[in-house]
C-alpha cells in the first residue's frame, strides 16, 4: 500500500481508482452506498461474470457474483456467505475477517477485485474437478460472522 494507505478511502476515491484500472465498471450511488458493477473473466477461456461490489459509507463491502452460475444448490458450494437462489447469485467470501486482510483503508481495485477474479478461477476449477484448489479456510457454520 502507498503512503496514504492508512487513510480510510471515501466512496468517490474508491470509484475513481477502480475506474482507472477497470474502465468498463458501472457505478451507482444511492443513499448510503455505492454499487460497482463489473464484468470479470478469470481466464480467456472462462465465462464472464457480473460482479457487484456494494460499498457502504462506513467502508464495509459485500461482493456478489452472478452470471451463468452452476451448481448453486450444491451442498459443498465453496467459500460463500449466502446463495440467492432467486436471483442466481452468490455472496462470496474472499478474506479472513479476523486476520485484518481487508479494511476500508485498502483500495478495492487492489484487493477485493483481483481476489474475486481468483475466486472465479477456482470456482470454474471446482466445477471442473470437484475440488476447491484455491486454499483458504472453511470454518464451521456457526462461527461464521456475516
Amino acid at each position, binding site marked *: 500500500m502507498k503512503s496514504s494507505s492508512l487513510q480510510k478511502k471515501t466512496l468517490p476515491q474508491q470509484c475513481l481508482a477502480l475506474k482507472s484500472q477497470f474502465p468498463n465498471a458501472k457505478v451507482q450511488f444511492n443513499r448510503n452506498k455505492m454499487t460497482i458493477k463489473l464484468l470479470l473473466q478469470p481466464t480467456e477461456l472462462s465465462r464472464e461474470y457480473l460482479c457487484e461490489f456494494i460499498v457502504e459509507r462506513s467502508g464495509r463491502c459485500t461482493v456478489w457474483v452472478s452470471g451463468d452460475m452452476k451448481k448453486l444448490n450444491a451442498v459443498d458450494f465453496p467459500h460463500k456467505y449466502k446463495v440467492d437462489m432467486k436471483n442466481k447469485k452468490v455472496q462470496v467470501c474472499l478474506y479472513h475477517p479476523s486476520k485484518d486482510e481487508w479494511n476500508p483503508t485498502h483500495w478495492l481495485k487492489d484487493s477485493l477485485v483481483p481476489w474475486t477474479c481468483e475466486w472465479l478461477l477456482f470456482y470454474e476449477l471446482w466445477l471442473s474437478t470437484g475440488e476447491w484448489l484455491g486454499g483458504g479456510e472453511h470454518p464451521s457454520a456457526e462461527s*461464521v460472522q456475516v
Partner: protein
Amino acid sequence: MLKKGVNILLGTSNETLKQIFRALADSLNVSETTTKEIIASYEAVGTYLGNLEEDLDIKISPQGSMALGTMIKPLSSDKNGEYDVDLICQLTNGESLTPEQVKHIVGNRLHESPRYSKMLDPEGKRCWTLKYTDFHMDVLPCTPLSSENSNSIRITERLDNNTYKDGISNPKGYIEWFKAKMQLVYTEAIQNYAEKRNVEIEKIHLYNLRTPLQMAIQILKRHRDIMFEGEDYKPTSIIINTLAARAYGNEGNVYDAICNILENMEQHFTIGPNGEYQVLNPTRREENFADRWIAEPKRKDAFFRWLQMAKKDIVEDPLNFIDGLDSLKSRLSESFGAQVTQDTFEAYGRTMLDNRVNNRIGVNSKGNLTNKKSSAIIPVTNHTFFGSV
C-alpha cells in the same frame, strides 16, 4: 477460424491453454519412479546377459519412445495397457555371427534363467519380449555393422519359413537426428538440467528432459490412442514422431509447438515415384516408415482423419467453442481420457495457487489472471478465502 490459427503462429496464443497443455503433457508423462524401475530392470537384464557372454561384450540401451523421452502412460481402459519399452541388445563382438545365432544366443540365455524364462513371450519376428508387472520390454538382438556408418546396427528378422535374415537399423542415429531437430531448445534444456541437478551433461538422457517437442509428441500420441481405441489402422508412433520433429520450429512452449506441428506436418511427407506418401527414415532414406500405406490405403486415410480431428480438438475448438474451464475440461476428457484430464486440471489449479502465494499473478482490465507484469496488471495479493461450504 483460420485467423485464430494464424494468431497462434504469431505467438499470441492463449496463456491458459499454454499452462493447461503443459500440465496435460506432465500428466501423460511416465513418473520418475516408473522410469527408475524400468532402467533398473533393463540394466539387470544387461548385467545378466553380459556376465554369461563376456566375450561378446553385450550392451543394453533404450531406443524408441523410452530413449526419446516421449513415452506416455498407457490407456487404463485398455486391458493390455502397459508401458512398451524398446531396447537394443548389442552383441558388440558378434559381427561374424549369423542372424540366427545372434537371435538365439540372447533367447537361449533368457530361457536358461529361472527368473527371465517365466517372463518371456514366444519368439517375436525381431525381438524377445519380457513381461513385467507394469511394462513389457522388447529386447532387440543386434550387432554393429562395420560396412555402414558407425551408428548403424545389424538386426535379425525371422521369416515365415523359420529362416533368418539380416536387417539394418539405426536407432542411435535417429536419436541424434531428433536432438538436432530441436537443437536450440535441447541445448538450453540440457544446460538447465545440468545446473539444477549438478550433473555432467554427458550423463543426461533425453528422458530426463521435457522439451516442447517431446511434450507435443506425447499429447499427439495420446490423442491418437483415444481416437483409435479398439480400432484398426492407428497411425504409428514413428510416423507421428518423425513428422512432428520435422515440423517443429523450436517453439518455446508445448501449446505453440503442437499448433505449429499440426498446421505443418502434412508438408513433411515425401512423395514417392508413384505419387505415394512416404515418411522416410531420416537415418536411412531407403526405409519408408509409411511403406504399409501402399498396400493398405486405409492407413493413409486413418492418418489424415486423425490429423483433422487433432486440429479440431486441440487448435480450433478450444479457441472457438469454449465457454468456461469446466467446458474445456469436458472436451479435453473426451480427447485425452478422464483420469489424465482430471490430473491435468488439478495440477493447473495447484500451480495457479502456488503462483499466487508466491506473488507471481496479476489481473488485467478484463479480470484475466496472468503471469505477465506491466503497469496495467494489478498483482493479486495474499489473502485467505473464507466462508462456509
